[in-house]
């Protein structure tokens, strides 16, 4: 790329290009462009409307989470990882906790596993809804933005009811969950699901046969199975290219093998294929949530090991979530041992046996892997996250080079990257 800087400076475009001897121009798309899903910068070399080369520039949202985790205890790690891919916080927490549990050699109780599945699938729906809303808006289907965010809002309300927060929950903890579902949660989730199926039908009616939507998506951003595998692409992109690879089926965790669901695939490998796959995945997720609700049986949600289980009992008070008054009374007024135990576990944390594990989970964007190394201390030695957005984004130049600049928007939207996860 032999670029020459041009300052437009209020002149007419004819004058600008007339004064330039080169045939191609380099355009920075982002990092403030509204359709780059955050702070992604794409350096595009254009020949007229055709994209000659596309170079993604990332790192604008880098927050040093992997480094930060190394100087905090194992439990605090959950509050960091949940902030990475901010559209799928439960998957971040789940992958991390499964890795820590694998090192500890423990397994969360059945009720906790079921609640994890339930929340993850609700989260998959809410994450796909953001993709549908923003992706729709970027291609001119403005009403999708309102509808998608409206439904997502009801899911976030459920999350708020259950965890106390709309995102960044830190609800899944090593050994189980921080607290049980509130009594009214199953009913509220059921009510949402009853409503949601019809809503999905509406979206399909709105988009699936819309000529503009088809034109902007069919045959755009094609990624074939062979290229997808070579580029490490996983998740809906790989399934839209014809490979029915889903870790929930192939390497099940949290008891996914007991649930009845399909892995939707398409063979077109284009933006439209990914749209179909994601829509059908939302239906499958709703199916799994219903099954999880049926499987919910009473029981503990945290392992019965006082050396690991978080000592506090949380309760929602008038001023938000906090330690239950009965628990505070016990540790402050009745049992000094309980106070010492609480203090030790909260400030120092538990030790995790030395070793290294790699634990992947199927996030809405693909394989979310945690390479966790422990040196036997109360803090992790190293936590590396294989974020699917990071890897999938690498395939973007392959998908858009040679196409039109307008198709970059469609391809990027169907790739559904979350920059919080890309940059970590």
């Amino acid at each position, binding site marked *: 790329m032999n670029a020459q800087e041009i300052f437009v400076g209020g002149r007419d475009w004819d004058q600008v290009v007339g004064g330039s001897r080169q045939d191609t121009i380099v355009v920075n798309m982002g990092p403030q462009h509204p359709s780059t899903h955050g702070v992604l910068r794409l350096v595009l070399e254009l020949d007229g409307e055709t994209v000659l080369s596309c170079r993604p520039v990332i*790192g604008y949202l880098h927050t040093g989470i992997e*480094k930060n985790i190394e*100087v905090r205890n194992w439990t605090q790690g959950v509050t960091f990882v949940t902030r990475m891919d901010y559209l799928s916080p439960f998957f971040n927490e789940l992958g991390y906790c499964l890795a820590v549990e694998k090192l500890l050699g423990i397994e969360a109780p059945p009720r906790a596993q079921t609640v994890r599945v339930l929340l993850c699938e609700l989260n998959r729906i809410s994450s796909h809804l953001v993709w549908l809303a923003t992706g729709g808006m970027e291609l001119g289907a403005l009403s999708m933005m309102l509808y998608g965010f409206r439904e997502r809002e009801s899911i976030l309300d459920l999350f708020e009811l259950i965890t106390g927060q709309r995102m960044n929950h830190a609800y899944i903890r090593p050994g189980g969950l921080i607290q049980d579902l509130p009594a009214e949660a199953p009913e509220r989730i059921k009510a949402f699901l009853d409503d949601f199926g019809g809503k999905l039908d509406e979206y399909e009616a709105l988009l699936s046969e819309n000529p503009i939507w088809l034109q902007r998506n069919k045959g755009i951003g094609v990624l074939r199975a062979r290229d997808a595998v070579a580029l490490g692409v996983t998740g809906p992109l790989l399934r839209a290219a014809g490979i029915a690879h889903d870790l929930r089926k192939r390497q099940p965790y949290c008891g996914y093998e007991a649930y009845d669901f399909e892995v939707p695939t398409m063979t077109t490998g284009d933006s439209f294929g990914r749209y179909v796959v994601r829509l059908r995945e939302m239906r499958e997720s709703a199916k799994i949530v219903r099954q999880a609700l049926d499987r919910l049986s009473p029981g503990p949600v945290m392992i019965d090991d006082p050396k690991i289980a978080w000592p506090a009992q949380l309760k929602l008070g008038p001023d938000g979530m906090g330690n239950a008054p009965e628990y505070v009374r016990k540790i402050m007024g009745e049992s000094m041992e309980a106070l010492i135990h609480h203090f030790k576990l909260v400030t120092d944390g538990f030790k995790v046996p030395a070793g*290294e594990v790699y634990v992947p989970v199927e996030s809405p964007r693909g394989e979310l892997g945690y*390479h966790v190394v422990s*040196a036997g201390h109360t803090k992790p*030695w190293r936590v590396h996250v294989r974020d699917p957005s990071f890897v999938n984004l690498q395939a973007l130049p392959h998908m858009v080079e040679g196409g039109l600049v307008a198709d970059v928007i469609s391809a990027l939207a169907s790739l559904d990257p979350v920059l919080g996860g890309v940059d970590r």
Partner: protein
Amino acid sequence: MNDVLANICAAARERFHDVSEPVELFGEVSIDVPRRVLPLVAKFLRDEAPFELLADLSCVDGLGDPAVRDRFLVALHLYSFTHNLRLRLRVAVPEGDETCPSVTSVWPTANWHEREIFDFFGIVFEGHPDLRRILMPDEWVGHPQRKDYPLGGTNVEYKGAHIPPPDIRRQPTTTTGYPGRIS
């Protein structure tokens, strides 16, 4: 250990004598691969096993561990669609000669992973087509994920009380035997 995986590891060992015996820990199988044969072993595993997907490429800094001979350990996590199996390759990289052959020609997805490891650990992947920093700014000095990289921060004073900066407050724990080593 899974029979298929055991056979693959044995075949790799027969072909490349420097590859270690497979070790199974926490239900995950790892083999140690010397740096110089890494691209050949990678290509062999991709084509013959076959491990089609390089799921992840990570690195661990074993600074301060007397049991560790080579400071850095590059870990490649492979996945086979054919056999539904995972395998970890571990490549030791000594301090003072922080280089490792690139596997971008075997798995193109390694491109950004290797840039990330270069950015954070300063390991130079030889043969990489475009080895630049990826997450930190281009002009950044140092490699932040190294254990001897200072955490930084400033001393905070409030009404006469002092809170020391994070690199004093939050010393990383010193390890007493990082268990990654096989040799």
